C-alpha cells in the first residue's frame, strides 16, 4: 500500500479530486434537490420532476463535456479514474438516462404513478453507473454497483398497484442481492490473494500466479455474478419477469444502461486483473456467449408479449456483446463498446414505440396490439421496422456495424492464432451468425403485424413531445451509425485503448 500523504487542506483536496466525479455529483445533487422540493410540487404537476431530471442530466453532460479533454489517471487516492473508457461509458449512461426520462413522464401518467421520486431514483442509478465505469478500486466499484442496483430494484417495483411489478421487483431484488454477494465473495478472495483493493495493484500481485485455485475460484465467482448482472444464460431467469413487470420506461433503461454498466465493470475487471489468466476462462465464456445468444433467440420465438420478447432478445444481445470479451483483445473491448453504443439507440427506440402503444385500458404489450400500426401511423411503423432490422443486424444500420465488429473481434483472435481454444471461437462465430437468422424470424412477426395485418385498435396513442424527441434521436442515430460509423468507432476505440 502506498503511504497516504496527509490531507493538509480538505477543501483543496476535494476541489482537486472532486472534478473527477463532477458529473456524478451533479446527478446526485439534482436528485437530492428534487426530493427536497417534492412536497412543494402539486400532485397534478409532478411532471416537473422529469424536467428537473433532464436539467440534472444536461448539467452533468455539460460537466462531462468540459472534462472530455483532460483525462485523469486517478483521483481520491486511486479510487476512481477518468480515462477514455470511463468517459465513453459515462456518455452512454447519460444518453440512456436522458432518453429514458423523456419517454417516462407521459407514460407514468398513463400508469397513474407519476411521482418525483421516480426521477430522483433514475438520477441516483445513473450516478451509480458512472461510479462503476470509473472505478479502479474494488470498494468504489462495489459501492457504485449497489447504488445502481438498489435504485433499480425500487424502480422495477414502482407500479405499486400492479402485482406484476411487485413480483418483478422482489424477484429482481432477491436474485440481485444474491449475485452481488457472489461478486463480493470473489472480491474478498482477490483481496486475500493480493492484499489490495486497487485493481492495478491486484493485477501486479496476481500476475505471477498461474493455476492458483483461489484465483480461479475468485475469477469464476466474479464471472457468475457479473453474468447475472448482464443477464447471460444460465443466470438470465430473472430477466423476462423483471422486464415484463417493471414500468416499461424502466425496462428500457435497464436493458441498455444497467446492462452497459455491468459490462463496463466486467470489461475493466477482466482486462485489468485477469488478462494474464485468459486461457482459463476463454472456453467457458465462449460457451456462455454461445448458449446465451442461442437461448435468448430461441426462447423469444415463443413469446406472445412484446416486453417478454424484447427481454429475451436483450438476453441474446448480451451474448453478442460478450463476444468482444471472449476475444479478450483491445479490438474485442472496442467491439463490445461499439455494440453497446449501437444497442443503446436501437433498443431504446424499440422500447419507445412499445411505450407509445400503452394507453388507457390497452396494455399495448400483446403482439396483436401492433396489428395494422402502419395504416394508422406509417412513420412510427417504419421507425419500428428500422429498429428491428438494426437489432437483427441488417445493413446499413447500426446493429450491423455492431455485429460486424464482434464477429471480426473473435475472428481476429482466430487468425492471429494467439488465443487459446481456437476451435470453440470459430464455432462461436458460426453459431452467432446463424442466430441472426433466428432473430429475424421473431422480429418479423411484429413487422408482419404492423405492415400486413389490418385490424387496428381504435384508441389514440399516448404521444408526447419527449417521446417524439426520443424517437427522432434514436432513429437518426440508428441509421447514422450504420451509414457513417467512423466517428463512433473513434470514440469506442479511444475507450478501448485507455483500458489496455
Amino acid at each position, binding site marked *: 500500500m502506498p503511504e497516504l500523504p496527509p490531507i493538509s487542506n480538505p477543501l483543496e483536496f476535494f476541489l482537486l479530486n472532486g472534478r473527477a466525479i463532477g458529473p456524478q455529483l451533479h446527478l446526485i445533487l439534482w436528485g437530492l434537490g428534487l426530493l427536497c422540493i417534492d412536497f412543494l410540487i402539486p400532485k397534478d404537476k409532478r411532471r416537473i420532476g422529469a424536467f428537473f431530471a433532464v436539467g440534472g442530466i444536461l448539467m452533468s453532460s455539460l460537466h462531462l463535456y468540459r472534462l472530455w479533454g483532460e483525462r485523469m489517471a486517478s483521483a481520491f487516492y486511486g479510487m476512481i479514474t477518468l480515462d477514455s473508457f470511463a468517459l465513453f461509458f459515462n456518455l452512454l449512461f447519460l444518453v440512456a438516462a436522458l432518453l429514458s426520462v423523456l419517454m417516462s413522464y407521459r407514460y407514468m401518467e398513463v400508469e397513474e404513478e407519476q411521482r418525483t421520486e421516480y426521477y430522483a431514483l433514475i438520477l441516483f442509478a445513473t450516478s451509480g453507473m458512472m461510479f462503476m465505469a470509473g472505478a479502479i478500486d474494488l470498494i468504489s466499484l462495489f459501492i457504485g454497483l449497489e447504488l445502481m442496483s438498489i435504485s433499480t430494484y425500487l424502480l422495477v417495483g414502482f407500479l405499486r398497484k400492479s402485482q406484476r411489478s411487485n413480483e418483478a421487483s422482489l424477484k429482481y431484488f432477491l436474485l440481485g442481492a444474491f449475485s452481488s454477494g457472489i461478486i463480493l465473495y470473489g472480491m474478498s478472495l482477490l483481496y486475500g490473494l493480493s492484499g489490495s483493493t486497487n485493481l492495478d495493484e491486484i493485477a501486479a500481485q496476481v500476475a505471477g500466479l498461474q493455476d492458483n485455485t483461489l484465483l480461479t475460484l475468485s475469477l469464476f465467482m466474479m464471472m457468475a455474478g457479473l453474468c447475472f448482472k448482464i443477464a447471460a444464460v444460465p443466470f438470465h431467469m430473472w430477466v423476462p419477469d423483471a422486464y415484463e413487470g417493471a414500468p416499461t420506461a424502466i425496462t428500457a433503461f435497464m436493458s441498455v444502461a444497467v446492462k452497459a454498466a455491468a459490462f463496463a465493470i466486467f470489461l475493466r475487471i477482466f482486462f485489468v486483473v485477469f488478462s494474464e489468466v485468459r486461457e482459463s476462462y476463454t472456453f467457458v465464456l465462449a460457451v456462455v456467449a454461445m448458449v446465451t445468444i442461442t437461448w435468448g433467440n430461441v426462447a423469444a420465438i415463443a413469446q406472445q408479449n412484446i416486453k417478454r420478447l424484447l427481454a429475451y432478445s436483450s438476453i441474446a444481445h448480451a451474448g453478442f456483446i460478450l463476444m468482444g470479451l471472449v476475444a479478450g483483445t483491445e479490438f474485442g473491448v472496442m467491439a463490445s463498446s461499439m455494440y453497446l453504443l449501437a444497442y443503446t439507440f436501437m433498443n431504446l427506440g424499440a422500447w419507445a414505440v412499445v411505450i407509445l402503444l400503452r394507453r388507457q385500458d390497452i396494455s399495448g404489450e400483446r403482439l396483436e396490439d401492433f396489428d395494422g400500426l402502419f395504416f394508422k401511423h406509417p412513420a412510427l411503423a417504419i421507425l419500428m421496422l428500422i429498429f428491428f432490422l438494426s437489432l437483427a443486424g441488417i445493413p446499413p444500420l447500426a446493429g450491423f456495424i455492431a455485429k460486424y465488429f464482434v464477429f471480426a473481434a473473435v475472428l481476429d483472435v482466430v487468425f492471429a492464432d494467439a488465443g487459446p481454444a481456437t476451435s470453440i471461437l470459430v464455432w462461436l462465430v458460426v453459431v452467432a451468425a446463424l442466430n441472426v*437468422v433466428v432473430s429475424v424470424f421473431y422480429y418479423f412477426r411484429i413487422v408482419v403485424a404492423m405492415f400486413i395485418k389490418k385490424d387496428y385498435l381504435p384508441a389514440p396513442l399516448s404521444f408526447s413531445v419527449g417521446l417524439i424527441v426520443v424517437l427522432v434521436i434514436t432513429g437518426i442515430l440508428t441509421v447514422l451509425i450504420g451509414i457513417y*460509423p467512423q466517428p463512433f468507432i473513434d470514440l469506442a476505440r479511444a475507450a478501448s485503448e485507455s483500458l489496455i
Partner: protein
Amino acid sequence: MRFFMENILTIVCFFPLLGVALIILWPKGKEHDESIKWIANIVALLGFFISLPLITQFNKAQNIDSETGMRFVFKADWIPTIGAQYSFGIDGISMLLILLTTLMGFIAILSSWTAITERVREYYCYFLLLQVGMLGVFMALDFFLFYVFWEVMLVPMYFIIGVWGGPRRLYAAIKFFLYTLTGSVLLLLGILALYFHQHSVTGVWSFDILAMQQLDIPMDLQTWIFLAMFLGFAIKVPMFPFHTWLPDAHVEAPTAGSVILAAILLKMGTYGFVRLSLPILPDATMYFLYPLLVLSVIGIIYGALVAMAQKDMKKLVAYSSVSHLGFCMLGIFIATPVALEGGILQMINHGISTGALFLIVGILYERRHTRMIADFGGLSLIMPVYATIFLIMTLSSIGMPTLNGFIGEFMVLQGVFADSTYRLWAVWGAVGIVLGAAYMLWLYQRVMLGPLDKPENQNLPDLSGRELAMFVPLIILAFWIGLYPKTFLDYLHEPVNQIVERVRPNEFSPLPAQAALKE
C-alpha cells in the same frame, strides 16, 4: 457532363432514390395513385436511359482504370478504421447485368400498372429501393459495400412478396428472407476470413475485391471460405438442393416481383460465383469441381422433370428457372473460356426469356385470376398477338436457333466438351435441353392451342398497348443475341479470359481480343 461521367455509377445506382423521395413527399390520398405510377415509371425509364452511357462509353480510354482494367472506377474512404471503401467499378460482365437490371426494373414497374391497386405508394417505393440494392451489388468493388447492398435488397423484396403476393404470401416471404439470410451471414464470415487472411499476408486492412483476387490462399483455408461463400451464393442462385424457397417465392410473388426475382435477383448468386468465388478461390473451386458439376446437372434434370409435372403455369416457369440456372452453373464451374462466357451469356438470356415468361403468365392471371394450365386452351384463336409473343419466348427459353437461348446453351455445351475430363457431362446438358423443349412446348400446346372450349376464356382481350410495349425490347434483345451475339460477347472476352487464367492457368488459349478495344 463531366461530373456525370465521373460519377456515373453512383448516379445510376442511387437514381431510383429520387423516385422514392418524390413518392413519399407526394400528396397523400388514393386519388394521387395515378401520378405516383407515372413518377415511378418515368424514374425507372430515366434510370435505364442514364445507364446507357455505360455501354456507349465503355471503351473510352478515360473511363478505363489503367491498373485494373475496370471501367468508371470511383473510390472514396468510407470506414477508414477497418479499410472499407466506397468503391464502384464495372467490367463487361457487370455492365451487361446492370443494363439488364435497369431495363427489367423498368419493365417490371410498367407491368404493375393495372395489377397493383392497393398500397400503390409503398409498392413503388419498395421496387425502387430494390433497384438500388441490385445495382449496388453489381457495381461494388469493395466486399463490405457489396455485402451491404446484398442485404439491403432483402427487405423490399420481402414486402413485395409479403404484401402483394398470393394466398400463402407470408410463408413464402419469410422463407425467402430466412433462406437468403442464412446464406448471407455465412457469406459474411467468409468475407471476414478473407479479410483477416489478407491482413496477415499483406499487412493491409482492406476489403478490395480486386486485391483479394490476387491472393494466394492456402488450400485448407480456401476450402472453408469456399464452403461459406458457396452456401451464400448457391442459396441465392438457387442450386439444387437449396432451391426450395424459389417455387414458393415465385408462385406467391406478384408478377413484377417474379420478373425481378427471376431476371435479376437470381443473377446476383451467379454473379457472386463469377466475380468472387472463382477468381478469389480458384483452387477450391477446382477441388470441388466434381460435386459442383453433379449439383448443377441434378439442377438441370431435376428442375426440368419437376417443371414437366406442374399444373400451375407460374410454378412451371419457376422450376424451369432451376433448370436453366443449372446450365449457367455448369458453364461457370467448368470454367473453360467458352463455357464460362456461355454461362454468363445464359444469365442474360435467362433474365430476358424467363422474365418475359413470367410477364406472359402474369398477363393471363390478371385477366382470369387463375394460373392452372387446365383452365386454358385454344387461346391463340382470340389472342393472336399474345400467342406470337408467347411462342417467341417459349422458343427463346428452349434454345431455338436464331434466338438468344440457343447461343448460350450451345456455348456452354461446346465449352464443357472442350474440357478433357468432363466432356461427356455435356450429354446431361443436352438431355436437359430436350426436357426443356418438352415441358415448354407442352405448356404452349395446352394453353394456346386446341379448341377454345372454356366459356370464361371466350372473351379474353388481346394485349394492350402498354403490355405490348413491355415485350418489344425483350423480343428485340432475344433476336439480337440470337442473330448477332458478338455485340454482347465482345464485352465478355476480357473478364472471362482473366477469370479462366486465374482458375485454370495455361490450359486454354484465350478468347480473341476484343475488336472494340483496338480503337
